């Protein structure tokens, strides 16, 4: 028995078997993760009848263009995509400005109330978003911003995680001497921030942009309560709504769903590393 265990061939055999099992397991995980996306794309080419027929379909069908026309009939698809883009882009741009401004201010200046501000930010991260949903709705109504895109992105431009991230980057990559030099040259505080610090914060801004864009693109709850007219609705809302149509044309819906995911998948293909580190930056730091 011991001789068998010490036999190197036998040990190598075990290790190869273990590695095969390990890889089979890991690749099964990949398959289960990716499958729903592929399946959604596949169903986008099927008609309602072929989808519900008893024959087991695992191949593409030829109904893509029919589904596309159907999709445009049941919802203003491209308008929804445009609205989502608009909300995500403007929201991201403004939040880059706000978060870097506040983060820079917290990093560079010492002032009364700074610690309090920090504490408030940490606490606000713990606050469940649903708690402020009703007053949010009320404030938006009072300001006359109901059914506007501004109301959807405005509350999120001061993401505390983003502010901490920018503060961290300012401390790490903006030398104090440089700021002092700019001040002595007579640059105003804002000018110093805008032309000296901001360019140095670029990597941090890129990370933050990814986090904000992904969040705003995928956001559902706030648009659901704020946007009421079809022309203003974002894509997540429009997709959810067609569940209510009798005899839902699922092929068309799957086409819309797949296309709505594509922008983020495209960004993910190019910048997966940045996206992963950005979206987990609050946790890993």
């Amino acid at each position, binding site marked *: 028995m011991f001789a068998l265990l010490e036999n190197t061939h036998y040990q190598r055999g075990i290790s190869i078997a273990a590695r095969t099992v390990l890889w089979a397991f*890991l690749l099964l*995980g*990949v398959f289960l*993760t*990716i499958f*729903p*996306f592929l*399946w*959604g794309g596949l169903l986008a080419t099927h008609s309602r009848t072929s*989808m519900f*027929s008893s024959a*087991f379909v695992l191949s593409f069908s030829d109904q893509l263009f029919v589904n596309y026309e159907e999709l445009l009939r049941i919802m203003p698809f491209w308008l929804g995509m445009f609205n989502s883009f608009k909300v995500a882009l403007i929201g991201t741009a403004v939040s880059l400005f706000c978060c870097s*401004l*506040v983060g820079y*201010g917290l990093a*560079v*200046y010492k*002032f009364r109330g700074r610690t309090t*501000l920090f504490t408030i930010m940490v606490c606000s991260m*713990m606050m*469940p978003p*649903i*708690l*402020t*949903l*009703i*007053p*949010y*709705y*009320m404030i938006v109504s009072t300001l006359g911003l109901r059914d506007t895109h501004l109301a959807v992105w405005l509350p999120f*431009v001061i993401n505390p995680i983003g502010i901490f991230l920018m503060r961290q980057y300012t401390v790490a990559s903006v030398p104090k*001497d440089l700021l*002092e*030099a700019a001040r002595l*040259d*007579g640059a105003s*505080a804002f000018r110093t921030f805008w032309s000296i610090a901001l360019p140095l914060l670029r990597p941090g801004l890129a990370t933050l942009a990814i986090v904000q864009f992904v969040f705003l693109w*995928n956001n*559902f*709850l706030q648009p*659901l309560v704020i946007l009421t007219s079809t022309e203003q609705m974002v894509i*997540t809302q429009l*997709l*959810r709504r067609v569940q*209510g149509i009798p005899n839902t044309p*699922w092929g068309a*819906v799957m086409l819309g*769903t797949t296309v*709505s*995911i594509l922008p*983020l*998948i495209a960004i*993910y293909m190019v910048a*997966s*590393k940045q*996206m*992963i580190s950005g*979206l*987990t930056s609050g*946790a890993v730091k």
Partner: protein
Amino acid sequence: MTQKTELTGTVPEAPLTVPSPVQQEDSRLKAFFQKGTPYWFVSPYIIIFGVFGIFPIFFMIFLSFHTWNPVAGLASMRFVGWENYTLSLTDPTLWHTLWNTVVIALLSGLSQHLVALPMAYLLVSLGHRARHWLTTAYFLPYVTSTVAVSMIFYIMYAPESGIINRALVTLANGQITGFLFGWINDLMPIRWLQENSLIRYSISFVVFWKYVGFNIVIYAAGLTTINKELYEAAKIDGASSWQRFRFVALPLLKPFIFFAVTLTIIGNMNLFDEPYVLTRGLQQAATNGMTISNYLYRIGWEWLDMGGAAAVSWILFVVIGIFTGIYFWLFGREGLGGND
């Protein structure tokens, strides 16, 4: 000190700005601005958080003692005292939806972490390239929209034509697998999203699927911070692979586990999107599929009872507070103590 002299040394080389008389007159104003400068920088946060963060909290306290139909305008607000709370606390649906939330949170949360930890451990043991590609794949669901993936799962769960049931039927009727899985035929069609007894599991799986990759990434990042020499030392001392995981990796991962679990608790207690889509906008199997956030939405925006919804959100807030409090009390010291 040396820094300062160096800096003043550079001043003559810099272009001098000659102060104009107007600027000199404004010097008092300027002094104010200089003193106030930091506040200008943080003002966006103060303003927006004040409007969308601080004010809402106080308004919520106020509102929870009133009835208010938002469609009828602010004038329709009427003071009712504790009525909203007593009505909510005696509302069986509230307790039922709270129970649903806790069950879904536990099912999806526990499975996420129990799968993510060993997966991350396996990933870290692989080469750099393999790890990168696998992580990229596992993380993908986290990036995509909850509504979109829930829509796809909605189709996959369909009783007659959904891929999940079809795969199960194939498994049950297969020549080899039929022997083991033949009993599935008796259950067909499994109504994953229509049956009240199944909906919680179906929702939990989607939540698990979406967030397990996020936890894998966090744990993998945590594991890479562990010094390799510790494993080597344990190996030399004769520790098995499992023992190295259990007694070397796991204790050092504690702060990461603590943080990831905190995020899961908060996220899962607020679960809204997945159950909302999978119950078809709370239209089917909503008895067991509706979470407390969904119920709050229903009270506020479908029944237009904002005061009642405000009371429910405070109850939810207290419940989340109790859960995180218990969790911090049980594990907080260990979880945070592992930091140093």
